[in-house]
């Protein structure tokens, strides 16, 4: 059977020590048995490593940060579409998702398909609303306090014992052992990610994660649980292993069924010594370790593309247990011309 020719645009080619999911998403798509994909890499910075990885993207375009305004970003996508004819767009950053969700219909009218959560789904799982989310869907979550100013430290101390987690709205999380550290992290995070800064109860246990894909009708199309084996100083997984954990799978399926989640997601959970699971975060997109799921037998990027195109996807229930990923860094030697092209022309 011949493969379906298709053009897919992907963001998140920043395969750094804080990696975006773009490169592993593309690897999954390239291993597809049904799609023969032409890949358009969309980058924000001219040193994103995915630009320089041989054989990864067919074309590369620089796009403006969503902070420049949604319209500017979408107009740039439309301009790229006029020459490249994008069939499916897979955004991979939390910060850009809002712009793409808001303009889903505008993009779809031009033939650019996406498969993203709805605005309500996206907003109700935000970190500063996690407590209400837990109550609504019957999931254990740590207590939290949204901080707009340092005067709330006394509220924080009344509510929680140290240590506490101090988190940004989109990224960054630190463990604070005392009020001095709370102040330090509060300033650091608010300067970068704005307000509120979220103080979260520290739950002792092992961090475990699930990557999943919901079809928007309550069905779990794919789900693979993983435990990080090696964590960088930025808290990123540098090695991980798939688990056999029925409780995690049940929790995931229940959550997708109740929320009717649409698109990729990552559940970040803490498993306590009593085998209780606390949901600490939901990332509303495919995580950077997605290639482990592909290697374990669930090609989530391929399934997401099918869903975006309105094709039928049978739920994937099997995966290899004990499959590991180990990341590595690699020095690519690059000619100046390529760097000059992306810097000056904003495309390669």
């Amino acid at each position, binding site marked *: 059977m011949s493969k379906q020719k298709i053009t897919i645009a992907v963001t998140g080619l920043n395969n750094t020590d804080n990696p975006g999911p773009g490169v592993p998403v593309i690897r999954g798509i390239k291993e597809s048995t049904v799609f023969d994909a032409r890949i358009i890499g969309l980058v924000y910075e001219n040193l994103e490593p995915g630009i320089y990885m041989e054989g990864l993207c067919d074309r590369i375009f620089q796009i403006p940060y969503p902070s420049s305004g949604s319209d500017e970003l979408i107009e740039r996508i439309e301009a790229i579409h006029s020459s490249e004819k994008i069939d499916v767009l897979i955004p991979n950053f939390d910060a850009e998702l809002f712009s793409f969700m808001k303009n889903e219909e505008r993009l779809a009218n031009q033939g650019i398909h996406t498969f993203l959560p709805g605005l309500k789904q996206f907003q109700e799982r935000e970190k500063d609303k996690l407590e209400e989310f837990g109550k609504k869907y019957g999931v254990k979550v740590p207590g939290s306090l949204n901080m707009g100013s340092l005067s709330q430290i006394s509220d924080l101390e009344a509510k929680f014992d140290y240590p506490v987690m101090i988190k940004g709205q989109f990224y960054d999380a630190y463990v604070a052992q005392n009020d001095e550290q709370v102040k330090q992290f509060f300033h650091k995070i608010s300067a970068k990610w704005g307000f509120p800064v979220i103080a979260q109860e520290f739950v002792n246990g092992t961090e475990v994660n699930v990557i999943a894909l919901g079809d928007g009708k309550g069905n779990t199309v794919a789900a693979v649980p993983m435990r990080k084996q090696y964590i960088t100083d930025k808290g990123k997984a540098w090695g991980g292993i798939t688990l*056999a*954990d029925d409780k995690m799978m049940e929790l995931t399926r229940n959550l997708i069924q109740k929320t009717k989640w649409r698109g990729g997601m990552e559940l970040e959970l803490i498993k306590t010594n009593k085998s209780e699971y606390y949901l600490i975060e939901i990332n509303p997109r495919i995580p950077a370790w997605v290639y482990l799921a592909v290697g374990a037998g669930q090609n989530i990027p391929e399934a997401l593309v099918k869903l975006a195109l309105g094709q039928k996807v049978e739920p994937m229930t099997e995966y290899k247990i*004990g499959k590991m990923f180990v990341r590595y860094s690699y020095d690519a030697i690059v000619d100046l011309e390529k760097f000059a092209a992306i810097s000056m022309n904003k495309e390669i």
Partner: protein
Amino acid sequence: MKITGEIKISDNGFVFNSRTGDSFNLNPFGLELLKNIETGKDFDQIKNDVLDRFDIDDLTFEKDFYEFCALLKHHQIISQDDPLDFK
């Protein structure tokens, strides 16, 4: 006392708990003890076999065996319905 369902034991002594993601390395004697537990041998059978083969008194063996089992239990490699059951 039984090995939990998620445990995979390799012949080279590598033990993997697929529920927690933990892995352990056993020396040949540790592997032998674990295999004996896996096959359902009770404490007396294991003890008699060890006392026949090694120059060790039964009190020392019992102490070391219970310590080993406590470690296996802590890492969720074995489960015991009764904490005093070493059969």
